[in-house]
C-alpha cells in the first residue's frame, strides 16, 4: 500500500549529500520534509534537474537549487566560468549522482532516464509533480535546495 518509504527517499537525499560532501567537504543537512498538498507546495528554485524512473516504481526525482548556491558550488570546485550552461551542468551532475544511488538502491531492474536539466521559475515544480510528492528541503552553507520525490509503486 505504502508506495515508498523513508529509506527510498533517503537514498536520493543522501546522493545529494554525498555529492556536496565529496566535492566541497561540507555536509548537507535536511531542514524540512513534507508533502505537496493544498496550499503547501513544492519549492522550486532557479535551476532544476530530474531523472525519470520506471519499473517497479515509476515517477521522477527532482533536484532544484538557486543559482547562487550552484555558483557557490562551482566556486568551491574552482570552476571559473559560471554561466547558465555550467550551472545546469552542475545540477545535471547532481541528478546523475541521484540516478546512481537510485540504481544501487532499487536494483538493476529499474530503468532510469538520463538527467534533464532546465532553468525553472517560481512554481514550476508544482505544475509537474503529483500531489503528495515528498519535498525535502536541504541546506548547504547558507543556501536551501529541494529534493522532490514523485514516485509511485507500479507493480
Amino acid at each position, binding site marked *: 500500500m505504502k508506495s515508498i518509504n*523513508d529509506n527510498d527517499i533517503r537514498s536520493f537525499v543522501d546522493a545529494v549529500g554525498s555529492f556536496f560532501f565529496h566535492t566541497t567537504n561540507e555536509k548537507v543537512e535536511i531542514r524540512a520534509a513534507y508533502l505537496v498538498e493544498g496550499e503547501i507546495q513544492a519549492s522550486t528554485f532557479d535551476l532544476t534537474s530530474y531523472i525519470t524512473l520506471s519499473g517497479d516504481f515509476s515517477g521522477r526525482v527532482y533536484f532544484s537549487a538557486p543559482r547562487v548556491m550552484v555558483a557557490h558550488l562551482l566556486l568551491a570546485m574552482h570552476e571559473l566560468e559560471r554561466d547558465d550552461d555550467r550551472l545546469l551542468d552542475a545540477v545535471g551532475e547532481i541528478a546523475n549522482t541521484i540516478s546512481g544511488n537510485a540504481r544501487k538502491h532499487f536494483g538493476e531492474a529499474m530503468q532510469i532516464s538520463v538527467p534533464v536539466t532546465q532553468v525553472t521559475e517560481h512554481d514550476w515544480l508544482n*505544475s509537474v509533480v503529483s500531489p503528495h510528492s515528498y519535498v525535502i528541503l536541504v541546506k548547504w552553507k547558507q543556501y536551501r535546495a529541494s529534493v522532490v520525490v514523485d514516485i509511485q509503486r507500479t507493480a
Partner: protein
Amino acid sequence: MDKNSGQSIFARYRKIILAVILFVVADSVVIGINFYNTYKADESAVSINLSGRQRMLSQRMTKVLLLLQRSTEAQDEEGIVRNLKELDLTVNLFNTTLKGFRDGDMVTGGDGKPAFLTQVETEISRQLVADAYTIWDRYFDLLQPLLKNSRHYNAAQLEEAVAYAQNNNLEVLRLMNDLTTDLEVVANKRANMLRMVLIVGFVIAFMNFTYTVIVSIRDLMSGDRKLAESRNENVEILATVHEGLFLLSKDKKLGTQFSESLPRMLHREIKPGMDFMPILQSMVSPEIYESAMDYIELLLGERVKESLVTSLNPLTNVPVNMVDKFGTVQNRYLSFFFNRALVDGTISHVLVTVQDVTDKVLLMQQLEQAKSKTKIEIEALLRLAGSDFASLQQFIDNTGQSLSQINEKLSQPQEDERARLHTLNYIMRIIHGIKGEAAVLGIDVLENYAHESEQELVAMRESGHGVSGDQILRIAVLLEGFYERYSSLAAIVTRLADALGMKKAEPPPMDGAKDDKYAENTNSVLQTLTPAEPAQHPFVGHITSLAQRIAADHGKQIEISCQLEGFSSLPPDVTQELQGISIQLVRNALTHGIEIPEERVAHNKPKIGALCIWCKYLGNGDYDFSVRDDGRGIVPERLRNSLVKSGRLSMTEAAALSDTEIAKLIFQPGVSSAAVADKDAGHGVGLDAVMEKVKAIHGRMRVRSSPSMFTEFHVQFSAAR
C-alpha cells in the same frame, strides 16, 4: 471495642480463672491446717519427751534412795551427801513435771531450758496422771525429811521411804510408761491427720492442676488444629495453583508463604523476606521497572482508588528475560496482578498474582498478524455505519485540518534541534488528538496507525540524541501513511453519506483544484457506487458516450469517471460553455493524451486509460472544473519539434524558449502536437477555443502535466458573478 475484647477475654479464660481461684483457696486451707498441726506436733514432742523423762526419774529416785540407805549404813559421809543432793534434784524435777502434766506449766525441758508443758488432753492420760498422784502424794510426803539436804532424818524415816519406793516403783514406772504411750498415740493421730490433710490438699491441687491442664490443652489443641487445618489448606492451595502467588509487604518484601509455582515461574530461588524489586529489576526493562515501582507505591499508598488505576498496571503481558537451567535466555511473557490486602480498612499488604501468559501473547500476536488489512477496514466500515454521523463528519474535517497543520509545520525549515524538537512535540500533540478522537469513534485503522506513529515519535524524542533531519523525513513518511488511511476513510464516509441520503460531507480539505491520487479514488468509488445520484446532469451521459465513441475510433480503451457536482444548479449559459470546454478537452485527451493499449503496456501503464471529468464546488460560489487523462502528458520536446515543423517557430526561437514557455504555446491558436489531424484534434484550434470559452465565464485556466504520466486541465470560475 475495648469492652468487647475485655468480655471476650474473660469468657475465653473463665475456666482457667476459676481453676486458679480454687487452687488458691484449697492451698490456703491446707497450709492453715498444716501450720496448726505442726504447732501441735511441737507440743506433743515436748510432752512425749518429758513423760519419757518421768519414767527415767522414777527409777532414778528408787536407785538413789537405795544408794543413800547403803551409804548411811556404811557411814560413808561423802556418799550420803552426794545421794541426798541427787535425790533432791530428781524429786523436784519429777514433782514439777507431773504437776505440769496435770495443770499445764512451765517446766525445765530436756535440754535444761524452760519449756511449756501442756496439760494432758486425753481421758486416759488424765486418769494416768491422777493415778500417779494417788501414789505420789504419799511418796512425796515420805520423802520430805530427806529433801533439802537436811540431815534431820532418822533411819526409820529412810527405811519407810525406801520401802514405799520399792513397793510402788513398778507402779509408777508403769503409769509413766502408759502416759508416754498415750501421748505417742495422740501425736501419731495428729501426724496421721496431718498426713490426711496433706493428701487431701494434694489431691485437690492435683485435680485442679489436671483440670486446668486438660482445659488448656484442649483449647490449645483445638486452636492448633484450626491453625493446622488452615495452614494445610494454604499449603494445599499454594502447592497446587498454577499462578505464582505471594504477599508483598509495605517495604516491598516477599511474605513467608508463596505458591510452589512461583520460583519456577520467575526462574529463580525464592526465599521469604526477599526484596521483590531487585528480582523484578533483573527481569524487565528499566522503563517498565520504573513504572512498576510507581504503580506498586501508588497501591501501597492510600490516595489512589484501586479500581481506577488497575488499567495502568505496567506489568501485564510484559516480556521478561529469563535464563533457564541450560543457560539459554528465554523470552517469556508474564502478567503480574496486584490487589490491596486490607486489615481494618488500612492497606497491610499487596497480594501479587503472577501468570505466565507467553502462549496467550504469542497467540494474540499471531492473530494480530493474521488480521488482514482489509478485514480491519471492513471492521471500521461496520463500526462507522453504526456511528453518529455528524461526529464522523466532524472527525473527517478535523483530521483533514490536523494533517494539513502537520504538513504545514513540516514544510517550515527547522534550523536547529530545539526547533525540531518543538516541531516534534507539536506534531505529537496533533497525532495524539487524532488518536483520541479516532478511538472515541472506534476507527481502528487510524487509531492504530496514530498509536504506532506516536510510539515512534516518543522513541525519537526519548532517544536523547535530539531530532535529526532524517527523522523529520521519517515524519513526512508517517504523514503520508496518515493521508492514505485518511483518504480511504473519507471516501467511505462520503459513500455512507450518500447511502444514508445525508448532506454530503464538505469536500475533503485538500485543494480541490488539484488532482489527488486518493481523492481520485474517492470519486471513482463515488461514481460507481452512486450511479443513481438524483442531481446527475444529463450531460454526464452525453459526454461519457461521446468519450467512449472517440476512444473506440482511435483504438483506445478508457474508463471514465464523471462527477459533476452542482452542475445542475449552475446558470445555463455557464453549463453551456462548460460542455463545450469539456468536449474539446476530452477530444484532446483521447487524441493526444491517452495512448493505444500496446503503447501503454510498453510503458508499464495499465492497458485501460483513465479519463476523469469533475466539477467540484470549492465553496464561496467558486467551482473547479477539470479534465484529466493519464496519457503521455505534454512533452515539451515534441511540441518544440511540432512548432518548428509547422513553421511557427524557427529552430533558434524554439531552442530559446523554456519548456514552460513552450507549454504555454498550446493555448495559442493553431498549435497542436497531434501527428495527424482528424475530427477530434490536430487542427490546432482546440485549446484556443477552450481559452475563449474560459474567458466567457470569467474563468482561469491552469494546466498540469507530467510527461508519460498525466495531463490535467483546470478551469476555475465563480458562479456568483
